């Protein structure tokens, strides 16, 4: 007994398992192999013409893949500024700039433009609506917990599952939206996910619905950090509810608004699942996003073009990085 005890302690003195290096080692190995390596490998591959099924033909092309991307119609094509056609009704004339903006944003283009227009449609409501919701939930007193829970439910369900549910909601014959419209007496039939003008807004609506709960929670956390005294002081000074919101709450909440906005922005630029399931990028390419396109290039079109797909992925990552950096700059300057 004593002999083995000595042996053990002897071994401990030489090489000990009881060290911080041993503790971080499993994490380092797993992280390095399955997180860091694949990212760097993708970067490396982006400089090669590489078909996964024909590894022997792999060859270096420098920035060739990135150049191909800039000339790829399915990535870079842009419809341009769209102006309303035909005669305008009188009430449309003061709205002209908004009309042009909407028509332009709602016109399909290449994967890059589609990703941008998805982001433009998604981010503003996904930032603003949950803010109002959070303020209301915060004011709901004893029922606040209940409302928070109810609105949070969509967040915990897989996006794949919610996408399928929304496909049924949008079903042209039996979906909730169309049956309800029919019962309300609307004559026109909408084919939400197959109409190039409706598909993107329909997908965006579903995404905003799915993002409400999470963003609401972030705002609620932010609201709790604001000392109650500040708002009460403004109240005592005679400010109305709206004045307190605009003058006190919102300025103090600005860091949270920025966080929500940035997360929504990054998430929107990476959108994939909703389009993959609900529209497959169609009709035409009208809802083809960057990640969906690169997925298709790598795994769908049967050519396993891993080099080009990697270049698309890295170009998107760089774009996201630059956009985040600009957002940070802007938020700094405001402060």
């Amino acid at each position, binding site marked *: 007994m004593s002999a083995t005890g000595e042996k053990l302690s002897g071994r401990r003195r030489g090489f000990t398992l009881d060290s911080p290096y041993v503790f971080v080692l499993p994490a380092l190995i797993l*992280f390095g192999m399955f997180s860091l390596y694949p990212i760097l490998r993708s970067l490396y591959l982006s400089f090669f013409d590489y078909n996964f099924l024909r590894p022997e033909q792999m060859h270096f092309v420098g920035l060739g893949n990135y150049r191909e991307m800039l000339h790829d119609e399915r990535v870079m094509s842009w419809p341009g500024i769209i102006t309303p056609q035909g005669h305008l009704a009188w009430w449309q004339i003061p709205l002209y700039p908004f009309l042009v903006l909407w028509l332009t944003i709602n016109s399909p283009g290449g994967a890059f433009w589609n990703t941008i227009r998805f982001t433009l449609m998604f981010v503003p409501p996904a930032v603003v609506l949950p803010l109002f919701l959070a303020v209301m939930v915060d004011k709901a007193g004893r029922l606040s917990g209940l409302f928070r829970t109810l609105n949070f439910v969509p967040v*915990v369900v897989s996006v794949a599952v919610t996408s399928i549910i929304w496909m049924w909601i949008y079903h042209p014959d039996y979906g909730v939206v169309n049956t*309800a419209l029919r019962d309300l007496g609307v004559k026109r039939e909408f084919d939400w996910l197959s109409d190039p003008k409706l598909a993107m807004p329909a997908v965006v609506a579903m995404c905003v619905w799915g993002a409400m709960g999470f963003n609401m929670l972030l705002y609620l956390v932010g609201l709790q950090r604001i000392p109650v005294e500040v708002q009460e002081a403004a109240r005592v000074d005679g400010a109305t509810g709206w004045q307190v919101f605009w003058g006190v709450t919102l300025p103090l909440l600005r860091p949270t608004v920025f966080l929500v906005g940035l997360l929504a922005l990054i998430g929107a630029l990476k959108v994939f699942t909703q389009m*993959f399931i609900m529209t497959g990028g169609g009709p035409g390419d009208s809802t083809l996003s960057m990640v969906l396109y690169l997925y298709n290039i790598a795994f769908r079109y049967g050519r396993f073009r891993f080099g080009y797909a990697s270049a698309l992925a890295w170009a998107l990552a760089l774009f996201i990085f630059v956009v985040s950096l600009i957002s940070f700059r802007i938020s700094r300057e405001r402060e």
Partner: protein
Amino acid sequence: MMVIFFDKLKKYLSRALLYLVLTVVSAVSILPFLWVILSSLKPHDELYSKHLTFLPHHYTLHNYTQMVQRMVGFGLYYRNSVLVSVGTVVLTLFVGSLAAYALARFRFRGAQALFLIFLGTMMVPGEVGLIGQYELLSAYKLLNTLTGLTLSYTAFNLALTVFVMYSVFQAVPQELLDAARVDGCSWWETFWQIMIPLGASGLAAAGTLVFLAAWNEFIFALTMNNWTDEARTLPVGIQLLQGQWQHWDYGVLFASVMLSFLPVIILFLFLQKYFMRGLTAGAVKG
């Protein structure tokens, strides 16, 4: 008198309006799920109705019995999802908290570099690694295996877990560790006997977050495990079944979708506290 009356009235009205709006918004959030639950109990003629029916006129379990009999794969996908998610949670919490322990309580060379690597990789969107990952798993014959997916998910959630647990472990008072050392505990024993029990609520928060991420993950599961049914997880499987059944039988699909989201929602209702804490910690850090 009148002024006070109107003031009170205004207060009540604005309160009522607040609850009304909140009720409507909350309804929009959960109605899609309620609709699926109710629809899964409807007979065919009501499912394929061109008019809006919310509550079933006749309740039936026909869709569920049909699903059990005819929907091959659903049970397998379910099992796979449970195995991958639980495996990921266990592995991530163990490996992650061990690393967090080292980073939070020891000074050693390379600690800073390690932190920077974790942080830097978190900034890169995971999708960028999709292709490299596919190649890697293919090289190690881990495509279409639960092991491959579990290892990938563990790696994705590791940085976040390390950051959450790092702040938890840093808050543990040094005196406790010193006392344990005096009692002859090795660092390894200290980890199990002091850090883990004291960090339990942090572990629960990180664990629920990791579980949610693994249970719901789509693009990697789609890419890595899509050749055979063997290791296909629920989100991908459900999407596949939707493709196969949509022209045949919506009732069966409603039943399967309902079974895929109900457990998570129930789990969430019970573990709400941890879900919320984990998610906010994760979002603020990430």
